[in-house]
């Protein structure tokens, strides 16, 4: 049971992060013939080849659980991954105790592999990473077991009261063992702060049914700013980085009733809770279910503001909870009423700008998904998905009030098939590409989602001062339609690899503006440079372009 719940959450989070994934990259479909591309290079430590290091290709759209192509280095450190289909890859090494020798040269490398292209010289120079180890104990000196320890990079820029600029995500995490001992290895040289327990402003993870502790940074402070930074250098080991947690946070129970619009109890309604913590929202790792009398109790809640979240496609019959937020302060609460009301519905059609019957037939394999983002942004308060009928019709139900974002994907994968992109969203004829504002219980009709189908390709290369991208440079390319005032909904930005190459596939015929931006390192003194290019493409053809960017020879004074 616990296992399946974990998966439920994994799947839930995967579906919530769809919009981000969608903007990533187009799907490159495997051609019928055996691909003959390859990626090769060398893995070295102090200029000496390392044997037995696994190097793998991770596709940008690789789903969890999918096998990845890989090879192992020979006695001289050389590797060669063969039979590589064209596409964008992250080339990664499996050498967890090691880090890239040059900070600007990350462990994962982005490479665009062309048709039957042999990409050579994807080299990795590694050094032994640093280690931080210590022990986590509770207020009584007992080891705290299976407690997550978070390693944050020290923030070097001076924080201001307006912008504390704390790093939100740990760079590394570890769990304490049965002796309370943790050990983090493979750390890049630098300065780190180490914490255990729950933080209100950082993603620390949580688990219900166990003690929660307030976040404590080594050596013994609650504030990240006051924490002692641990110096890590190549192959160093910082020991006794101990943390003493305080008393376990007191938890409370919330009891209530699930009722329908007439106030009658509704049994067997399953939901979970979202807790607002600082600027973000976290899911409470527990399921609440109303019993035959509609009553429910949720235990183990730490103080905070909570909201109700229904699982998409659950048997709530497209109902949604009306204003059922509650707050836990310092005692159990009861009388929480989760009133189910008919959610808003959105009906409309998906239209593809294409005459091709084979293209139109693909529509029925697609799904439209809607996400309501609550005012203030960030929090997905409800979501719904609908199949697309043969006539393009869809119906999204059970939605709350807020801004509705739409996307179109295949049923089991968060990406639309190659060639499909969303051109615009119309409501009663007006373009609403920034999302549809929905009121409580509103019945929205007349939504048109216009998709295009394209088969043009742009193959590009970004050069800097007529040469390749300098080390540490990052290039980004954005595609837009010149003269359009509204942002295009779904013109995806391509990944530009470390050689400056990018590929845009399945774009509709037309004229586009390519805006290229190149930045070097994270040095704010070197400003990013942009270049614009206008490109016209036709269906079924490939356009090769070079975008030249010139960098200033000397950094201007700030």
């Amino acid at each position, binding site marked *: *049971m616990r296992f*399946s719940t974990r*998966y439920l959450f994994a799947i839930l989070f995967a579906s919530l992060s769809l919009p981000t994934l969608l903007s990533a990259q187009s799907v490159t479909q495997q051609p019928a013939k055996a691909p003959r591309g390859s990626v090769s290079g060398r893995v070295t430590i102090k200029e000496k080849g390392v044997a*037995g*290091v*696994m190097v*793998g290709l*991770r596709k940008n759209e690789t*789903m*969890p*659980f*999918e*096998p*990845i192509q*890989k090879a*192992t280095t020979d006695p001289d450190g050389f590797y060669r991954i063969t039979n590589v289909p064209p596409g964008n890859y992250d080339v*990664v090494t*499996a*050498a*967890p*105790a090691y880090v890239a020798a040059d900070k600007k040269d990350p462990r994962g490398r982005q490479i665009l592999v062309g048709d039957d292209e042999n990409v050579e010289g994807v080299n990795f120079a590694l050094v032994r*990473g640093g*280690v931080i180890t210590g022990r986590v104990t509770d207020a009584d000196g007992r080891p705290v*077991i*299976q407690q997550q320890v978070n390693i944050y990079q020290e923030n070097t820029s001076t924080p201001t009261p307006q912008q504390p600029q704390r790093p939100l995500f740990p760079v590394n995490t570890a769990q304490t*063992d*049965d002796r309370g001992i943790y*050990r983090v*290895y*493979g750390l890049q040289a630098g300065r780190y702060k180490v914490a255990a327990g729950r933080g209100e402003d950082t993603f620390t993870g949580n688990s*219900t*049914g*166990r*003690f929660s502790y307030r976040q404590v940074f080594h050596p013994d402070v609650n504030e990240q700013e006051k924490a002692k930074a641990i110096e890590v250098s190549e192959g160093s080991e910082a020991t006794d980085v101990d943390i003493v947690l305080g008393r*376990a946070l007191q*938890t409370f*129970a919330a*009891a209530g009733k699930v009722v329908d619009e007439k106030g009658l109890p509704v049994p*067997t309604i*399953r939901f979970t809770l979202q807790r607002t913590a600082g600027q973000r929202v976290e899911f409470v790792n*527990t*399921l609440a*279910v109303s*019993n*035959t*009398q509609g*009553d*429910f*109790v949720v*235990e*183990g809640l730490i103080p905070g503001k909570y909201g109700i979240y229904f699982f998409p*496609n*659950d*048997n709530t019959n497209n109902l949604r909870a009306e204003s059922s937020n509650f707050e836990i302060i310092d005692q159990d609460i009861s009388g929480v009423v989760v009133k189910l009301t008919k959610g808003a519905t959105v009906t409309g059609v998906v239209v593809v700008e294409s005459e091709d019957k084979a293209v139109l037939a693909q529509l029925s394999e697609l799904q439209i998904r809607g996400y309501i983002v609550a005012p203030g942004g960030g929090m997905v308060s409800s979501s719904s998905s609908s199949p697309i009928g043969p006539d393009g019709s869809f119906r999204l139900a059970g939605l709350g009030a807020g801004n509705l974002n739409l996307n179109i994907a295949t*049923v*089991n*994968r968060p990406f639309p098939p190659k060639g499909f992109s969303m051109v615009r969203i119309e409501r009663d004829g007006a373009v609403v590409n920034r999302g549809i504002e929905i009121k409580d219980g509103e019945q929205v009709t007349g939504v048109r989602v216009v998709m295009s189908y394209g088969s043009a390709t742009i193959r590009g290369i970004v050069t800097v001062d007529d040469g390749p991208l300098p080390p540490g440079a990052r290039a980004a390319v954005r595609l837009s339609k010149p003269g359009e005032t509204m942002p295009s909904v779904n013109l995806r930005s391509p990944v530009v690899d470390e050689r400056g190459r990018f590929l845009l596939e399945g774009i509709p015929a037309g004229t586009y503006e390519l805006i290229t931006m190149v930045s070097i390192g994270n040095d704010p003194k070197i400003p990013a440079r942009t270049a614009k290019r206008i490109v016209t493409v036709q269906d079924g053809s490939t356009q090769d372009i070079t975008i030249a960017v010139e960098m200033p020879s000397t950094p201007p004074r700030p």
Partner: protein
Amino acid sequence: MIHNRSMIVFLVLVLCVVVRGQERLAERKTPEPTTGSIDGKVVNESGQPLAGASVFVRMVNSAVLNRSTTTDMDGNFRVNGLETGLYVVAAQAPAYTTLPGDPEKPQYYRLGDSARVDMIRGGAITGTVSNSMGEPLIAVRVRATMIRDANGKALRGPLIGSFEQPTDDRGIYRIYGLAPGTYIVSAGGGGFITNFNPYESDIPTFAPSSTRDTAAEVKVLGGDDVAVDIRYRGEPGHSVSGSVAKIGNTSNVTLFLTKAGSNIPVANTIQIPSMRGFVFNGLGDGDYDLVAQESMTNPSTYLLVMSYSEPKRITVRGADVTGIEIVTKPLGSISGKVSLEPTKVPECEGKRPPLLSEMVVRIKRPEKELEADLFAMRFTANSGSPDTGGAFNLRNLPAGRYQLEPRFYARYWYLQSIAINGAGPKPQRIDAAANWTTLKSGEQLTNVAVTLAGGAASIRGSVPVKDGETLPTGMVVYLIPNDKGKEEDVLRYFVTELAADGTFTFNSIPPGRYFVITQANVETQIATLAKLRQPEAAPSRTKLRRIAETKKSELEVKPCQNLVDYQLKQ
């Protein structure tokens, strides 16, 4: 485990009787909804309270009514707002483990009960994994798999109860929270999901540096550290891949690989809807059996609907095996109805009927079939709960022979009959209490009638024990029906243990005449109530009857009689 009837439930019952007055409680079908709580304590092996343990209180046969809480600083917990029903209580605490309960004697809790959960500090296996040059291997997964429990009983079935930890940058691993027992420890090989790990396509190396067949056995006692180093062999293995056809959009499939023709687990993997197939990595040459289990959640009840595949023989000989196609088939079910037959005897006036919500119908299978069946009962449900109308449904059952064992809580009621009413113009009525019920593959067997009757009696008695003497252990007392026409009624056979002081108790006895005899060193077939009533025990029952007829110690109990101080001469 301690039972305590709390005052609250008692008061509720008293109030029911008062308010309802002369109303015939026995005919009341759905009781008033009441809520209550289950509380308890989680303690460690020395009886000290365990703070911060997760406690799960789950309603039997409900997929959703599963509440969780945490023990306080004194190890106590309490779950409020529970509806009338039967619950199971489980606890989890990091580094601790629970000894598995006797599956024959599941512990159910009712509202107002107090549960005591005993946990023991698990043992740890720790050591270093190094290659042939003695260099440590980093991030190789090390797995400890229990092969025998603390009592030396061999574990069968799919790979569950195995624990994994990766080695750190020094090649050191530490697997903790292990239940006492005998383990084998391996490094490398395929995991549950495909990771980007250089060791996962290797054949696992078993400690100290061997194959599965010559793996060292590691004994773990509670709370101890055992040092186990592994010299990694790094033999490349092969993969077995394929797909489970037509899985539902919400299905999850788990695939189990075992050594061919045995129950020795090799590996598990999964296939979820977003995956096009499954793969097992790191397999050596040999024959294997592959079974797929598909589970889907019913969208309105949230109960799991399961299907299984037939085992498929897979042979690995020096190459990867691809393109395996597996199809799962739905499992069978047994459904029926529990009915209550009240008695009109004045002595039984006002006696509380059993609550349907506090009932389960459990199933039993012949031990031989259970042993032969890899997956039976491990993942499938083994009980069903009647709804408010008494209807019950035991789902996800593989083909085989079954017996039903209803559990209920009402002192003055007894199990009268279990029968299957056939269909057709001349419906045949099969006594399912005296016979195994055979379920064919995928069969939906219906019309099982379980009848509980009012008027049960109880007997508290003793056999004389001389001062300063105690009875030998393993002595039991039998009740054997002595009414004309009831000789073959297996539900009138009872067995109970004789305490060292010579006392014994029988509850929920149908009123009537019985022989009472004591026996020492009885064969296992008639040692427990469930076994005594099995068809296989018929010759033994006849033998018992013959012994009883010569001893002539008879008794008669009247409806709702509590016979106390019954003196049985030996």
